[in-house]
């Protein structure tokens, strides 16, 4: 579903991502972990087509991000780490806006909005302007907007930050549902327990380089993901 081949991105002298390769198959929830500044957000942004990269190739469902970014973006959704939404719209107007961009029919969007907003207990807040939302409510709205056009691939940067336990559980279920339907999830997180329980595969990145990746068993063996991560980071 998502192939990252030899991705390299530099900021001046600094290599933010260095020759990174990751392959995510349909049906996989793929976790992306690393310390602050390791290159996770840079990688996700490059995959979302909002950051130019220097070398390498990114393909989504066989389509090259460099050659046909619009076709790629139609197949995916991206949720940034801090959901900055349009404060001047109501939640409902924002969802309609996103649905219009992706060409989602009125019937389909109504059904999706009802399904996810009621699950997140956000339905009664949708008519309110986004500037009145809390961080968690904005995060929920960003998640609903990502799900509204039934993407094949969803990429999320720290999606669990700001979510209450119930919403976090719901998000995990939604992620699994997408994968069960043949889609894939690629997300970064600092919450290693979540990654350990939720992910089919995981990649650990350090200073822009991939230092370990594979299935959860391959990466952590009999240890906990936290122990492995700290060991690889040289903190243990």
């Amino acid at each position: 579903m998502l192939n990252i081949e030899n991705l390299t991105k530099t900021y001046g002298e600094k290599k933010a991502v260095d020759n990174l390769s990751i392959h995510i198959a349909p049906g996989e929830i793929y976790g992306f972990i690393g310390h602050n500044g390791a290159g996770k957000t840079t990688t996700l942004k490059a995959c979302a087509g909002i950051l130019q990269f220097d070398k390498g190739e990114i393909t989504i469902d066989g389509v090259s991000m460099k050659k046909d970014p619009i076709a790629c973006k139609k197949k995916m959704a991206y949720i940034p780490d801090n959901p900055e939404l349009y404060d001047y719209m109501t939640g409902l107007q924002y969802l309609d806006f996103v649905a219009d961009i992706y060409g989602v029919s009125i019937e389909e969007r109504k059904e999706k909005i009802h399904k996810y907003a009621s699950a997140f207990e956000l339905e009664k807040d949708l008519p309110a302007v986004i500037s009145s939302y809390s961080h968690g409510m904005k995060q929920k709205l960003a998640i609903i907007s990502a799900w509204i056009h039934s993407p094949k691939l969803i990429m999320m940067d720290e999606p669990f930050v700001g979510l209450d336990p119930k919403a976090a559980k719901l998000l995990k279920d939604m992620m699994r549902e997408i994968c069960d339907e043949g889609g894939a999830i690629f997300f970064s997180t600092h919450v290693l327990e979540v990654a350990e329980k939720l992910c089919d595969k995981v990649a650990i990145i350090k200073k822009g380089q991939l230092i370990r990746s594979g299935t959860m068993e391959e990466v952590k063996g009999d240890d906990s993901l936290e122990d492995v991560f700290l060991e690889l980071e040289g903190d243990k």
Partner: protein
Amino acid sequence: MIKALLKKQFLELFSVFFRGKNGKRVAGGKAALYIFLYAMLILMVVGYSTMFALGLGATYFANPDTAWAYFGMGAIAAVTIAIVGSVFMTYNSLYLAKDNEFLLSLPIQSWKLLFVRLFGVWFAGFAWESLVLLPFFVIFYIMAPGLVTALGVVFQILLWIGLSFVILFMTAILGWLIAKAATHMGRYKTLIIVVLFLAGFVGYMVLISQLEGGIVALFEDPEAVTQGLGGFMPAYAFGKACLGSPLYGIIFFIISVALFALVYWVLTITFNKILMSNNKGKAITSNKRQDKQKSVNGTLIKREFKHYFSNAMYILNSSLGYIFLPIVGILAIVNRDAVQVALTNFAQETAAGDGSNPADILMMLKALTPIAVFFAVGFLGGTSVITAPSVSLEGKRISILQAFPIHMKQVLWSKIEFHCIIAMTFTIPSVILIGIGLSLGIVDIIVLVLLSAVMIFFFGVFGLACNLKYPMLNWTNENVALKQSMSVLFCMLVGILAPIVFTLLYFFVFINFLMPSIYLLVVAVLFGLVSWLILRWLNTQGAKKFQYLS
């Protein structure tokens, strides 16, 4: 403590010169360009003020009994400019400061916070006031040295400061009214803020027109103006004091200090409440469901509309000229006969002066009217560029658009289209009204409409290109992007200079070769050509730049 807080306040105020969009230090050249652009703006205000002072001085200095009106008018102009320039800063600084919660958590006494906040607001008002008032003082010393007294100079300095307290008092009241509107008026808050601002502005215009009976009367009948202005005590007291009257000087200064004390006292009582309330008011809600799927272009333009009408500052800062154009149009229609009479009188007076034929002069005046209309419309429209801050206003939310499966030139085009919709809705009918009001021929009106449309398009693409070149995405408050962005400043300068340059070019170069309508058509073609070139850049490199802005 106060020193540290003041340093923070001034860093915020002048950050545009030192910190770029990524918070990094601005390169020397760029900082110099910022300083140059601000210097140009300051020079322009000082220039207009000097011209105004020269005109008033020539009228009033001849008679020492009416000389006070010179300073009275100067004070009114200074207060107006200062209020217009700093009222939204007052609102933002006192009621919307993002760091209120942070500062409140620190061991700082609230009066110190208030002092620092008020100092910033006072400084902004004082700076604007000085740009207007100081040229008045200088012109006075040059044109009327015989009226200068030592006591007069002392009171000029005192009242220069005293007037800044009056400005602080008025901006604090207006800022409070805006804050109240923002808190209680829900979905209508933008409309109410715009109406409040315009009401204040129109109120001032009415006041001025009552005082002077129109700008023509100002120069034709100074006695009447002086009498009218004499009924307005603050202006009279200010004027008399600047000429050396100790009684009026002391009264004015005491009242201005008392007004400052009143503001400080009221705010001291309410400041903690202001700081601890979130001031968000009731959340705006809308249950309206969209019943039809929109096209990508339609939904992008709708988004621009929503953004524009959500922020009063956006409306006022980027389209005040358009709002005034219909007023000019209606005035032209209402005063249609009076304008013709004024033109005829002017022609007769000029003819009497140089012995030429009044009919010839009147014909020439009428022939040149389209150029004058171009100048006025170009000036009002050129300083109102909605696209100039539109990229910056995306802020960190820009990634939402960047991640969508759409070409970024569609996004840019929606911004240009929105600018054209708003600008043309106001401008085109206004130009037609002005044309009819000034009895222009149908060809002249058509040419002016065409030129206006082309110029609107030009400023739309030009503003957008400037903003792509100088984006400011890391703001904490949209008003920073609206007020302190280099693209806005640059567009405003070009908007002011373009009509001046093309008008002067006609009068000094082309007047003997080209009829006004032909000249204006040439100008339209020129603007059209440049617009096309800029649009080509926007569709290619501009769109690419937007895609990866961060």
